[in-house]
């Protein structure tokens, strides 16, 4: 068992090792201009420097804080709202196109107006993340609640479930797979929106780090930033989203779509 896990970890890591070796060998060999593509060693050095003088940590911290604040605020409002609207089929079918329209717009398209309303900085970026998550999660919650079969709700009601029991034992569990899907999509858009917004509208954060490095042709900082962005998203995906998905969708066995 242990051996199998080790070997699967090895086979997962092997392609990356090959890629790194190719990078370390071919870039110096063909004498590629470091302004076009950096050497592996200079990227590593940029990473070490960034950690030592704290700037890299600062950028990562700022980006993660924005995502966390925006997402938590959005979820706190979106899930109750989605459930409240989804309970009545009439209201939910009326509002679905509206939320669909706004979830289509969510994220990057709001950057210009967000910077105008909130100025450049924390407010604008958090707003972009908030509405990327908010509309998609609300829409999916709405959808999730309205796909719960009416018989299930009637059965619970005729067995004497109160409003609270109905909420916690029927509506919330029934909609949870959809909610989780919504969170995942929303976060995907929010993460991209974050990087784009940071390029345009702030002075700290990963996107800003990349975009400033471009002005000075410091490709090693750009590539370092890209790797950090990739690793962070993979960690977020594997350590936060995948376990939630496993716990909800698999537990309630609702992987089929309606």
């Amino acid at each position, binding site marked *: 068992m242990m051996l199998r896990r080790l070997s699967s970890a090895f086979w997962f890591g092997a*392609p990356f090792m090959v890629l790194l070796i190719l990078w370390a060998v071919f870039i110096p060999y063909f004498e590629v201009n470091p302004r076009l593509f950096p050497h592996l060693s200079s990227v590593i050095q940029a990473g070490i420097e960034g950690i030592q003088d704290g700037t890299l940590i600062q950028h990562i911290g700022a980006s993660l804080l924005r995502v966390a604040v925006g997402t938590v605020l959005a979820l706190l409002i979106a899930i109750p709202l989605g459930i409240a609207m989804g309970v009545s089929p009439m209201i939910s079918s009326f509002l679905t196109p509206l939320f669909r329209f706004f979830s289509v717009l969510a994220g990057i398209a*709001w950057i210009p107006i967000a*910077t*105008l309303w909130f100025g450049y900085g924390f407010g604008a970026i958090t707003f972009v993340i908030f509405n990327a998550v908010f509309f998609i999660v609300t829409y999916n919650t709405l959808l999730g609640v309205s796909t719960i079969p009416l018989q299930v709700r009637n059965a619970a009601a005729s067995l004497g479930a109160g409003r609270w029991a109905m909420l916690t034992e029927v509506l919330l569990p029934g909609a949870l797979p959809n909610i989780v899907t919504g969170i995942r999509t929303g976060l995907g858009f929010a993460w991209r929106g974050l990087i784009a917004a940071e390029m345009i509208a702030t002075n700290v954060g990963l996107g800003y780090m*990349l975009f400033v490095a471009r002005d000075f042709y410091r490709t090693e900082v750009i590539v370092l930033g890209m790797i950090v962005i990739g690793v962070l998203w*993979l960690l977020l995906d594997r350590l936060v989203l995948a376990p939630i998905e496993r716990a909800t969708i698999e537990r309630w066995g609702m*992987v089929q779509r309606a």
Partner: protein
Amino acid sequence: MKQFLLKMWSHCVRLTTRWPSIASIVPFIPVVAAWWIVTELQIFPRAFLPGPAEVVRSFGALVYMGILPAYLQDSIVRLAVGAFWGVALGIPLGILVGLNQRARTALWPLLLFFQAIGDIAWLPILVIWFGYGLTTITVVIVYTVIFPVVLNTVLGVRSIPITLHRAAQSLGASRIRMLWEVVLPGALPNIVTGLRNGLGYGWRALIATEIIVGTSGIGFLMFDARRSGSVVEILLGMIILGILWYIVDSWILAPIERATGQRWGLVTR
């Protein structure tokens, strides 16, 4: 008051049952009305939130000057070209990775990682490589579209029951016919789902790229308006983006998805 509302509601229900396509427009009427009332009451300064009438007027002006049609065409052509290449490269790659064990061991982790980097993070280095221009925009969109297509194609290819492979083989299907008649149709519903997701991301990437790199396009229109502080044109851009994507998604992509999924009956993920 209540009587009036009930009457309105009954009209609305009757109308939407006769023409179902109207149902998706009706909910926007109260929103636009609320927007109009808020701006008329001057709760927010005009410069921050202009009213619907001004947006419509600026729409007329921009169409009349020919800016809006030209920008719209630019954006749509970019997205179409990007989507085409994303699909043209993505499906073969997905089938290769899905069918070949060795290719999967070598490429799957890389695919996951490069997908995680995300399109927009590539912008700064692409600008260094290709400058501010069409190449940069196209590369970003192809990059965005290709990953969902590849990952979903792999999923689709892998979800074809092995019994189907064996049946086709024992009936004497050649490799090309296997590909054409078993693998591709079996994976098609997933491929279409992938394309839909990919276009959803590609669409946003296009806007971001046009904002940062752009020399034309709807994203550029919005950011140019932001620079000159004209909220009217920003709102106009957002509305156009929303309507356009709504049309593409619900009139083109969703029907294709439904058609393939229903025909081949393989909507299980």
